[in-house]
């Protein structure tokens, strides 16, 4: 997809924080990353960017009237309430093993993320 303007990446610190969180949370919940790790990379970049901007990893696959208010409300901060309660992640970061898009990985390297998100 062509962006009309440059898309800003997150800080390395918060990207690494979200990467580590996602790896351990996938293992803990028995969920898997998308077979297309590009999806995983983009979502992790989005979570880390929200952590930079809002102080919380607000879900990047929602539209909000007020991002700061939503981050304070915490419902859509990762792992969001639907994920915690029902293992539902519409962002496709954490997929149950019966999901047709699920891959077999619960790990992604920093370089794998950035080699994907550097394209945008």
């Amino acid at each position, binding site marked *: 997809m062509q962006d*009309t303007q440059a*898309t800003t990446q997150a800080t390395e610190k918060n990207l690494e924080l979200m990467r580590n969180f996602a790896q351990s949370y996938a293992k803990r919940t028995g969920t898997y990353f998308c077979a297309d790790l590009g*999806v995983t990379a983009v979502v992790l970049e*989005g979570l880390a960017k929200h952590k930079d901007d809002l102080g919380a990893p607000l879900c990047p696959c929602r*539209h909000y009237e007020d991002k700061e208010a939503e981050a304070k409300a915490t419902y859509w901060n990762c792992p969001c309430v639907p994920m915690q309660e029902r293992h539902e992640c519409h962002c496709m*970061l954490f997929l149950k093993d019966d999901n047709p898009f699920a891959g077999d990985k619960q790990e992604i390297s920093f370089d794998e993320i950035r080699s994907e998100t550097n394209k*945008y």
Partner: protein
Amino acid sequence: MAAVQVTDSSFKQDVLESELPVLVDFWAPWCGPCRMVAPVVDEISEQYDGQVKVVKLNTDENPSVASQYGIRSIPTLMIFKGGQRVDMVVGAVPKTTLANTLEKYL
């Protein structure tokens, strides 16, 4: 023909006043499933060239239209005909699902 980007200011002219039915892809920059659905939307644009207008709207940069139509989960694909929203599909869906939804309004 690749899908063009529309904005809060061009939405009325490009979508609501369009002669053809319009498929609008509401997306956001760091949304993984949006990246999955983008090539599907481009294929639809080529397949229905001349029958359907296909456009994309960045919800971060164009919050007014996104809010007006109650966009929550992204990606959301919305179909407009004669200035009215007539249908929508939420999430990364297969091309056949999108095509079948679209066919109803041609």
